[in-house]
């Protein structure tokens, strides 16, 4: 697993914009209950796995439950996402922040890790990393450097309230759907809620994703001899990644640690050099963030196949 992406970085922050009007929903979207807990509490809990500094931007009169975050209020209410973005980034301690809205129940952490990693892409620095999904830029699922704040302030002063103006001004990396699908095949990250019907559909999806998935690890070559078995059944969380699976595999087959698997200080396991992984006999993968699906078979084999 890529430890850089999996540990909490003090240089990076997260911003949740919760100050929207929620007019079609009829009640504050941040407080919609999932498993008896407000959605915003779930979001903070999930983002805190990656970010130690989380800022929530609320409307001037908005009431939120007590959360381990820095709470700021829009100075001027309802200026759209640019306003929230600007006030949120100003309040962060990091050099860059992942920014999201408060109505997205299915954030995918590996995908967020990938977005953050793209601030420096092929040796080029970007100020913004924004995904493109269903032919639209997704400004509220994007990463911004704090250095863009002056540009946002200029936009607010000029009443240019669409984030896209910023992308024309500063170096912006647009992440393609093909890249997104590597981490989030169904685009769950972008599933937001505007109506009661959306909420009911999200609740149904939430229940589906709460069910653990089963995967099988098939061991070949030295891995098989070392583990003294050819197959290991794993039960994983619904949104498990390859890295998660390897970590669980290390727990199930400790003999593999040190020869086939390496574990970092946090206990996250990864494949040693000399080994690779193939999913279902189809795709060779090494990226720890690769999402797994129920029923997947993970083949662990020598990276020197053939010969």
């Amino acid at each position, binding site marked *: 697993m890529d430890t850089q992406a999996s540990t909490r970085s003090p240089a990076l922050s997260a911003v949740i914009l919760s100050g929207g009007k929620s007019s079609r929903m009829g009640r504050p979207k941040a407080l919609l209950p999932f498993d008896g807990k407000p959605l915003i509490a779930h979001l903070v809990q999930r983002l805190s796995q990656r970010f130690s500094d989380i800022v929530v931007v609320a409307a001037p009169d908005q009431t939120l439950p007590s959360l381990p975050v820095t709470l700021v209020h829009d100075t001027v209410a309802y200026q759209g996402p640019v306003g929230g973005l600007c006030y949120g980034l100003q309040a962060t301690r990091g050099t860059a922040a992942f920014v999201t809205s408060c109505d997205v129940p299915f954030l995918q952490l590996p995908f967020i890790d990938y977005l953050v990693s793209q601030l420096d892409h092929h040796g080029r620095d970007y100020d913004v990393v924004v995904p493109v999904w269903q032919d639209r830029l997704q400004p509220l699922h994007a990463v911004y450097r704090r250095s863009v704040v002056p540009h946002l302030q200029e936009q607010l002063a000029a009443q240019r309230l669409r984030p896209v103006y910023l992308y024309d001004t500063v170096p912006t990396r647009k992440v393609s759907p093909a890249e997104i699908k590597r981490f989030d095949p169904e685009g769950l990250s972008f599933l937001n809620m505007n109506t009661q019907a959306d909420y009911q559909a999200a609740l149904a999806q939430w229940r589906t994703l709460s069910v653990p998935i089963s995967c099988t690890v098939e061991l070949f070559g030295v891995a098989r001899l070392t583990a003294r078995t050819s197959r290991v059944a794993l039960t994983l969380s619904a949104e498990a990644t390859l890295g998660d699976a390897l970590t669980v595999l290390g727990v199930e087959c400790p003999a593999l640690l040190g020869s086939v698997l390496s574990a970092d200080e946090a206990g996250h396991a990864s494949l040693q050099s000399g080994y690779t992984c193939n999913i279902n006999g189809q795709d060779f993968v090494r990226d720890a963030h690769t999402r797994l699906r129920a029923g997947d078979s993970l083949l662990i084999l020598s990276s020197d*196949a053939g010969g």
Partner: protein
Amino acid sequence: MYGFHGRLLRIDLTTQSYTWQDIESSRLTAVLGGVGLGASLLYDHAPPGAEPFSADNPLIFTSAPLVGTGLTTTAKYAVVTKSPLTGFIADSLSSSFFALELKRVGVDALVITGAAGQPTYLLITDDGVEFRTAAHLTGLSAQETEERIRHAERTEKGAEARVAAIGRAGENLVRFATLSNEGRHAGRGGVGAVFGAKKLKAVALRGHCRVAVADTGAVERIAATLRERSVGPQTAKYREIGTVANLAVFDRLGSLPTYNFQNTPFVQAEALSGESFVTNGFSQTHGCAACTIRCERLFRSLSGEAQRLEYETLFAFGPLCGIEEPDAVLRAARLCDRYGLDTISTGGTIAWAAECADKGLWPELRETGLSFGNAEAILALIPDIAHRRGVGAALAEGSRLAATRIGAEAESFAMHVKGMELPGYEPRSLKTMALGLAVSPRGACHNRSGAYEADFSGQVDRLQADAGRGALVAASEDFSAVLDSLIVCKFLRKCFDDFYSDTAHLMSAVTGWDYTAAGLKQVGERINTLKKLFNMREGWQPEDDWLPPRLLTEPLPSGVAQGVGLTPDELRLMIQSYYAARGWNEQGLITEEKKREFGL
């Protein structure tokens, strides 16, 4: 001169004479040793159009600059000739003490021409060549021959000769006969049959010459690093299981050809897997001289004999012929070693015959009882091939020539390229490898390029063909050409930080000449250009760079790659991309400009 002797020994079997000749240093820097030097000498010493079994066809042994330096995995030699199986270049490698002794007799190459009147073996020392009768060795296996000659040629002071010999198959001109030494084989392309045509049973070597290196300290430092890495995770597969580890993985990935390439996967893959061989029975590791990887695995058969087994042998008699019993595969391997037969071509040719039997295309096969999976009938054919008895006489010609006798339908499932039977890599689910097999100068070969590496790494979509594969295959061929000319075992290839930079540094330290990474890359391309030039001179046509019809008409019927095929258009696209990457014209011919670029 460092690293090289700078001379070769020409031996004429017809006149029983020999002479030493200098090798220009410009040639050595241009093509190194091993396969490169062999290809270069073959081009110059073989008369154009020489028949493979004629006295004119030279049999060339080459040493290499890294041999004898103490670097792990470098005790190797090449034997190069015009192949009786393909009619094109045959460049086979073998290894161990014979390779070290070749360097000690004070030459970089042996060029053997002519033909003896009677069975003969050669004793080559620093002082010259002795032509000895081999009448008493006729019919013996390579191993028995080796033991007899070593005993006979031991000096009073106990100095041993090292011997490479052929078995019965070579004597009988089986077109895929091997040359063997110390249990290792120069396996592919029928060099053993060229020995047989010259009535040459063996070559024995006994020398004392040493070659100095230019910078001993630097060579020792590099050697120490490689030695350490050679026992790390990059080679664990070879050390712990051997190449037989490929079978289970290939099966799972839909890349294990079964039943003469009619299907994949194989129902008994687990029982035949390398993991099962290691877990379920006796196994013993063995290594070549000066090798720290020690990839060889010997397994004990039910009769108690220890038998070396490699993936390609396991594939060729297991899934390809449908044999399900591990012990039967070990027995087949033992028979091939005894008679001196290339296991891939033997298994491939028998698998083709089994399909002929299934389809009722060859009535004479009825008497043999041959069918897929009938281990006893398959095993019985091996000595018949070596002795050219019954249907074995036709099978001894290889699947291409045998099929021409049976008819067009049988030709459509003769699984060869340029006459050489395919190794155990399913081309339809390994598209880069498909191209590598089609264009390889020596026929369907998995050693002169590692094209499969792109398929097995996720670097490409292995199930799809595209125009990017040509550059990958060309680069892989060039890499292998350098590897095979230094010579370094390919199992060490992942132990380098940067192969070309590291080996340029190494070659500079060994020879004292200035090598660069870019220069060595160019050497690889030059060697492959040379091989192609030889093939062009010997009648290569564009249709020779092609795959068997089955692969281009039948999608895989099952497994993870079910429904995946390879169309002629897809193959053509990849071949054109390969010619473009090579800078050749659309017909695959080398342009005058390219020849000039390489000084050819």
